[in-house]
Each structure stands twice: as C-alpha cells, then as structure tokens.
C-alpha cells in the first residue's frame, strides 16, 4: 500500500477544514478559549496536542487487536495520560515559562474530547500509519484554529505578536490607539471562533444546515 494513497491523504487533510475538530465538530473549545490570549502558549499547546494525538493514535492502533473491548477506554486513558505526563515534563524542563503560562491546560489535554474521539473513532479500527496521519491532521486542525484566534487576541489585546511590541513600533499609540481589553477576556475567543465558523460556513455551502 502506498504511503500517501488517496485514503491516507484524506485522513490527513479532511480534519484541517472539512472535519475541523474545533469549528465543525466543536470539540476542545475549553482549551481553545483558555490558552489563546497569547500566540506563544497557543503554538506550544497546538504542538503538544498534535504530538500527543499522533503518538496515542499510533500506540492504540498497534495494540488495537489485543485490547479487550470492555476496558478499552481505560487503556486509551492510560496511554494518553502517560504521553501527557511526558510532554508536560519535557515542557517543564525546556520551556518553563510557557509551561507556567499553560498551567493546568497541559494536564487537561487528557480530557480533551478530540483525543478520545480520534482514538475511539479512528485508531481502534485502522492501521498505525493511517492513524498517525489522522492524528497529525486533527492536531494541526486544532492548532490552526488556536493560532488564528491567538493571533487576533494578542495583536488587538496586547499590541504584540510573539511578545514583539508591533503596535508600539508602528507608533500607533501616539495617534491615540488603545489596546482592546475585551480581546484578553475569554468572551473574545468565543466571538472569534464564532467568526471563523461563520466564515467557513459562508464559504462552504455544503456545511450549511437546511
């Protein structure tokens, strides 16, 4: 079987737009609201989730035939929890500041519905390689929305991008420009995600309900 057969490509690409975990399946909203006030934690969060989904998908897919059906949720949880702990420790060791900013949300990846959803719906029925691609696709789909939301929230809320004071450098404050405090609050993330959903549905007529 070719590595990038049509079916494999699909499992990689559809979660980016057509089956996006955040805007279409409306999963993982909690963390999308919580970690997106700055770009840096959003990128790290997106990366962590992508790595964890991909690896958990592969592991579960490898042992899918040996897992007894009745305890499969527990097995999935153990795998995810182990990976989350690993990622969390790595972050604490090499990116301490960001891990402080993300606080409990790295640990809470365990409860992220996207993960359990992919393990249940995909990894349990598919071979490791397609499962890996599916995990990457979903992780990137999630990370993409996070980064878009965080971009607008950081730019308008704090006037910076990756902590670079872009608004100050453009001398906008001297013209009377002010940072938008609402953008730093969680409701702004809701409104921004709603705008993305709005845009996506307006573009793609097949997504609209009758």
């Amino acid at each position, binding site marked *: 079987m070719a590595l990038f057969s049509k079916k494999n490509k699909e499992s990689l690409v559809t979660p980016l737009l057509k089956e996006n975990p955040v805007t279409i399946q409306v999963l993982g909203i909690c963390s999308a609201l919580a970690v997106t006030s700055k770009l840096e934690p959003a990128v790290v969060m997106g990366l962590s989730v992508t790595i964890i989904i991909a690896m958990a998908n592969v592991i579960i897919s490898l042992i899918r035939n040996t897992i007894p059906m009745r305890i499969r949720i527990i097995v999935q949880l153990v795998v995810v929890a182990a990976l989350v702990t690993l990622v969390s420790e790595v972050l604490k060791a090499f990116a301490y500041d960001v891990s402080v900013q993300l606080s409990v949300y790295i640990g809470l990846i365990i409860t992220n519905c996207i993960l359990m959803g992919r393990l249940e719906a995909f990894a349990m029925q598919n071979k490791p390689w397609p499962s890996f691609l599916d995990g990457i696709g979903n992780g990137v789909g999630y990370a993409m929305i996070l980064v878009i939301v965080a971009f607008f929230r950081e730019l308008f809320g704090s006037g910076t991008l990756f902590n670079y004071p872009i608004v100050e450098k453009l001398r906008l404050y001297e013209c009377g420009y002010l940072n938008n*405090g609402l953008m730093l609050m969680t409701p702004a993330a809701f*409104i921004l995600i709603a705008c993305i959903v709005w845009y996506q549905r307006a573009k793609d007529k097949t997504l609209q309900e009758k």
Partner: protein
Amino acid sequence: MKFLRNYLNKIKPNFEEGGKLHAFRSLFDGFETFLFVPDDTSKSGVNIHDAIDSKRIMSLVVISLLPALLVGMYNIGLQNALAAGTADTTGWFDMFVFGLLVTLPKIVVSYVVGLGIEFTVAQWKNEEIHEGFLVSGILIPMIVPVGCPLWILALATAFAVIFAKEVFGGTGMNIVNVALIARAFIFFAYPSVISGDGVWVATESILGFGSDVTVDGYTCATALQHVANGVEITGASGAQLSVMDMLFGFMPGSIGETSVVAIAIGAVILLWTGVASWKTMFSVFVGGIAMCFLFQYALPENVVAQVPFWQHLILGGFCFGAVFMATDPVTSARTEVGKYIYGFGIGAMAILIRVLNPGYPEGMMLAILLMNVVAPFIDYCVVQTNISARAKRLTKKN
C-alpha cells in the same frame, strides 16, 4: 410636502428592477418610507393594520430623547465652563453651541457607521432596510462620556450592530439592547475612556466656543464615583452639587443621562403615546427603591448603601435606563405580568451592583443587559403558569 412626493415619484423608476440606480434601491426605499407612510396594502386575505408602523414608533422615541439630548449638550458647555472657571462670563447659548459641537461628531459617527452596516446588509440580503437603528443611533452617543474618542465609538457601534443585531436576524430579533451592547463593548474593551475621572468633562475649546481647561491633568469623577469613594458629591468646579443640580442634570456624566427633568419629559411623551410600557418603567423604580431600603438596613457599614434612596434614583443612568432602555419593546418581557418582574429585576440588580461591586460605580447597564437575557425565560414562566392554571380550572369544572 406635495413637491417632495412628486419628486420621489419622479425618481422612483431609477431604483426599480432594471433602473440604473437599482443598486441603491434599499437606500431609496428607506428614505421614502421614512418621509411618507407607505400606501401599500395587503394583496390577499383580510388584514388589520395599525396606522402606526415601526418607523413612526422609532421617530416618537427619537423625539422623546431630544429634551435629554439638548440639556445634555448645554450641560457639556456648562461643565466645561465650570472646570475652566469661566462659568460667570460664558452665556448659556455659547455653552449650548459648544456642547453641540462636541456631540454632533459623535451622533454623525454613530449614524454613519450603524446605518452603513444596515444598508450594506439590506442590500446584500436583498431586503428592505430595517429602521431599528434610528433609535440606537441616537442612544449610543447619549450614553458615552464626552471624552470617548470617535474611532472607539465607531468600533463599538459596528460591533453592536453586527454581533448584537444582524447575526440574530436584524431589527426586532435582537435579544439584548443594541445601544447598551455598544456601551458594554467600550466598557470592557477600553475601560479608560468610559470610567475613571478623566473623561466626563470636555477640556478643549472648539472653533472658539468653550474654554481650554488650563489645569494639567484635570480630573472630575461622576457623582456616583464620589458616592462609591465615600466623599462629598462635587461638580466640575469642585463645589458641592445641590439637589437642583442633580435634578436638572448640571453635573458630570454621560451625555444624555444626567438630567432627570428632561428624561421625565421624554417619559411623558413615551407614556402618552403608548410607545413604552408604564408597568416596566414603574417597576424599575419600585425595584430600585426596595433594594435601597433593604441595603440601608442590611449594610450599615457600606457607604453606597447609606445614600438616601432618592439620590440613588436621580444619580447616574438609573432614570435614563428605566425610561429609554428598559422599556425597549424588543428586548423586554412581553407578557403583562412579566413586565413587572422584568422591571423589578432591573431596578434591584442596578442597585445591587452599585452597592456590592466596588469596581463598578454604576450598575444600570449591566442590570438591563442581564434582565434582557432573562426576559424570555420570565415570559415562558408566566405563560406556562397561565396554561397550567387554566388546565386546572378546566379539570375542576368537569
């Protein structure tokens, strides 16, 4: 009038299907129905129409807002003169013109942005223009302080019209008050231009009218902020405010909210024409007074709670909110019993926020927005109670 009608009839074909100005049909339609009551009649079935349509109702509300707006303009000039120490030498007409010059750009910005979005949406969805923004457009400049920058006002108006109104389906479909959403947006996004003590008095002269306040970093808080800080209520000149000042609205505050007398004139117009519900208005005051008395006894230590109840009612936006915001027929409760509950809730919540939340000296805006959200639930409960009461009566009879 005749001339205007003839002129409209003459240019009308340009805007109809196939005309060269067809792209602006919603604009033409909006103006035509604003100027003249449309003479379209129902084509089928029997329909009973009231002679008054929503454009006429909106115009009545705008008329009832005018006294508050005019007094507000005069007050801007007066506060500016008081702050600069030139109150004795400045005539009332100069003060009014200064206020007009300060307020006019805000009104223009609010209408241009709001109506611009309305026209665009109407054109895009191929619908008629909704008239709802006529009132919101005048309300928005009236509930912001003089010091609010125009670009922030424009942004807030755009946000309110798009996210509080158009996404819900336009005029008549919004669940929360559009003008208050604009204010809430400024309040949470740019707190420095709508709270604190630097934005309530105009400090720069315009076109020779008004005076420049020479004191560097001049500050003057609103009456409610003085109350919250537990200090004497003083005006722009530093002198203590009399009860008459509070009633006539000669104190710092948002542009249209200060004058109780002017708001009362508006209230009379609204009630006399039957546009606003006296039940809502009345119960807002009852709720506020009840809460004031409750806190007066429950919290003897709290300075805001110890302010006499009549002062709570005439300071800040309480009257303005009760008369013009709470009675908005779209967002308030629709059942008659519900109106009492809804109004009472607004009054009570407003005083509750003022007394218990030290961060917000004024609670009227948040109270009305909260009750806007609760209103459909109140209606649901009232209707369900009625249904079950009637069902019970029926089973008893049989």
